[in-house]
């Protein structure tokens, strides 16, 4: 197919058709093209997402009745551990930067590729290796059952193969660092002529802040994982009190990374929302600089709040107060973003297409997630909420309702530019509605149950909670059916969809200015940029 297309019209083949040094699968897994790498990440990521979602489905099913329904407590422990490890380390953390970020960062900057294409491919290989090592841990010595946080003393006492799983996470951290480093350098060096920092699309700003956190926070996770590893293999006591260590230190080190990592997960999603809002309101974004700076502010403040995970560990009262205060401060830049997104809609000519629907549900769900987060930042209230379903539901509102909804929004937004095809909008709308309803049935119920005292990580519950659990489980079915319909619709669009126009939504950023699918090196000529990224009110636009 590829060669025919070239012979007939002599246009440059697009990135899917182009023939490199290798053919077939090698042409993908050895490709340094950022677009192909982005799609390879996406492919793996969706597989991991669906498998971890299936585990979640069975966890909900276990809670259908009081007592044992499907599995024993030990199995339930491994299930939530594996669900968490896959979702956090393999899906949500690499998530948007690795997939859509890889694909669209150079396109939005007007660059031919990222700064270090080979390093980018290496990141993908490290990601694959880390994932394989984690899956290997399943077959040698049993699934880990410590929860996704690998807390000491669980990691000390468990007999399962935690060292191998931890090593996998370490490798994934490497992949994450290299991606961050690559993106930051790309944005410093490869912006198109005329594109100053404040003419950069806001998705890039999200990736920029993310890149810095990836570089600065991930090494702490790396050293923590290494220490767990040497403690378990070489008996160098660091966290195990029996050989001189301190388990609380593990929590500190773990959250010094893992709280900033929450912002690694959410900032790129916020970037996607900042792209979608102006496009579907047909006006420039409200408060461009405020959104750009607030990304940096979130990255900065978010690095200093890890102690709010540890209010109940007996750390000093002074530390608690400081961490609580800083936690509230993170709420400010986040609220600035939400305010600006909503203000962008005001007096815009709104087109309610699927990407905007997903973006709106992001704002709704993420706001609930944010507010429940602040509730847990209150020192006395957190004593009540700690280790309950409230925490779990909050986390899912932020990570699922935030990051994953952002990813879905981005997929629907950029799908035509990635594949040149269009999905069926009506089915996308149905999938969106099911997801929104199912999501709230599942997680809002969990918020309420948690507030009433349902503890997390129990495979069983009291009769009192049975109605709530049944409701949440039904919600999980609705949610999953919505997700499946969405994937089938996208897959159908990919295989049999109509050909999409070059710029179906009327986007103003550089990626939409490319005719059809982008060629191997994106731009025949590096474009020159005039004005801001979301100028919908140019004369040409008005004339239309």
């Amino acid at each position, binding site marked *: 197919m590829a060669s025919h297309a070239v012979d007939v019209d002599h246009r440059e083949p697009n990135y899917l058709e182009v023939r490199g*040094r290798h053919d077939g699968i090698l042409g993908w897994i050895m490709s340094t093209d950022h677009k192909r790498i982005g799609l390879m990440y996406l492919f793996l990521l969706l597989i991991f997402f669906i498998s971890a979602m299936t585990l979640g489905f069975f966890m909900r099913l276990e809670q259908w009745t009081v007592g044992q329904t499907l599995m024993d407590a030990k199995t339930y422990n491994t299930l939530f551990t594996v669900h968490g490890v896959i979702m956090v380390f393999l899906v949500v953390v690499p998530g948007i930067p690795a997939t859509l970020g890889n694909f669209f960062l150079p396109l939005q900057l007007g660059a031919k590729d990222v700064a270090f294409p080979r390093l980018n491919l290496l990141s993908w290989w490290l990601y694959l290796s880390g994932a394989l090592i984690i899956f290997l841990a399943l077959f040698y010595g049993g699934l880990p059952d410590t929860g996704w946080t690998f807390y000491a003393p669980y990691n000390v006492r468990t007999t399962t193969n935690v060292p191998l799983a931890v090593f996998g996470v370490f490798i994934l951290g490497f992949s994450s660092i290299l991606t961050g480093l690559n993106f930051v350098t790309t944005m*410093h060096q490869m912006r198109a002529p005329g594109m100053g920092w404040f003419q950069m699309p806001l998705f890039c700003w999200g990736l920029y802040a993310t890149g810095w956190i990836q570089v600065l926070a991930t*090494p702490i996770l790396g050293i923590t994982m290494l220490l767990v590893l040497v403690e378990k293999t070489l008996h160098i006591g660091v966290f195990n009190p029996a050989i001189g260590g301190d388990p609380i230190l593990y929590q500190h080190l773990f959250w010094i990374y893992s709280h900033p990592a929450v912002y690694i997960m959410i900032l790129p999603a916020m970037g996607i929302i900042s792209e979608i809002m102006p496009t579907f309101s047909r006006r420039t974004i409200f408060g461009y600089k405020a959104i750009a700076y607030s990304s940096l502010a979130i990255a900065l403040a978010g690095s200093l709040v890890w102690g709010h995970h540890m209010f109940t560990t007996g750390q000093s009262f002074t530390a608690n107060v400081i961490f609580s205060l800083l936690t509230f401060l993170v709420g400010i830049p986040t609220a600035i973003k939400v305010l600006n997104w909503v203000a962008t809609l005001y007096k815009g000519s709104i087109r309610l297409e699927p990407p905007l629907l997903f973006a709106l549900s992001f704002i709704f769900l993420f706001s609930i997630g944010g507010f429940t987060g602040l509730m847990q930042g209150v020192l006395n209230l957190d004593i009540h909420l700690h280790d309950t379903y409230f925490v779990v539901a909050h986390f899912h509102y932020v990570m699922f309702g935030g990051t994953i909804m952002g990813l879905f929004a981005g997929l629907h937004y950029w799908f035509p530019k990635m594949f040149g095809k269009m999905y069926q909008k009506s089915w996308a709308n149905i999938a969106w509605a099911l997801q929104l309803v199912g999501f709230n049935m599942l997680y809002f119920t969990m918020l309420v149950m948690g507030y009433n005292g349902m503890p997390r990580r129990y495979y069983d519950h009291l009769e009192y909670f049975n109605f709530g659990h049944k409701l949440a489980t039904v919600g999980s079915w609705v949610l999953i059916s919505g997700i499946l319909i969405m994937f089938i619709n996208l897959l159908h669009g990919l295989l049999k969809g109509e050909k999409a126009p070059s710029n179906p939504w009327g986007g103003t950023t550089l990626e939409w200015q490319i005719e059809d699918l982008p060629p191997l090196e994106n731009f025949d000529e590096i474009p020159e940029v005039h004005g801001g990224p979301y100028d919908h009110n140019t004369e040409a636009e008005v004339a239309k």
Partner: protein
Amino acid sequence: MSSHTDALVAHKHPSDFEGAKIAMWLFLFTEILLFGGLFILYAVYRFLYPVDFHNAAIELNTALGATNTLVLLTSSLTVVLSIEALQRGNRKLSLWMLGLTILCALAFLVIKYFEWSAKFHHGLYPGAEELLTHSNGEVIFFNMYYAMTGLHGVHVLVGMAILSGMFYFIARKPVDKERMGFDIIERLRGGAHLAVVADNGNEIGKVLEIDDKVRNIDIKVTYEMVPEKYDPRNLIKLENSALYWHIVDVIWIFLFPLFYLIT
């Protein structure tokens, strides 16, 4: 090369030296933070067990530690001299200095080996019965000692590997490789012939046929007889390798007083 060739190699990726530097510094941040986690642990435990740390530090051999400090500082000097030499086009001197650096790294590891084996001999290693008879703070001191100098040792090894790789890159004959753009290859397809012609009209390259199987055309230039010629990309690689080596050195500068000199 002539301007004709310059036009041919339109799609060559630019070597972005500044970008490479930025990326290297970002990577160094990650190294500092990696060790930063350990330094935090050290600080906490030192604060909790000041007397035990004092007693345990007496066990360490300060003379060997100081020698190693000297060795590493010297190696930092030689690696800088190596860069300096390459910048001036003196490949031979650059290689000598780089070789000295690698030797210093090796010397460091050998001294470290003897130090560690002496400790092992006295039963002062993680998990040893003997060590567990000591007080908790002393146990932690030695745990931290092995964790931190061990991780540092791994970095010395990696640094050695990188510097050896650089030695190879600088030692071999400089080669330039230029890739032609897609549009040019398309124009040449279907039996066109390609020759490399110098400015004065002399044909220097072979005449080749470009059939449909050809996907990329690279022009490879090997500098056989030009001793002062070096691949400019090697310079940035060497500078970045040296930066890595400096961070290994700097970390040791902190480890040395924290473990050996706190008695």
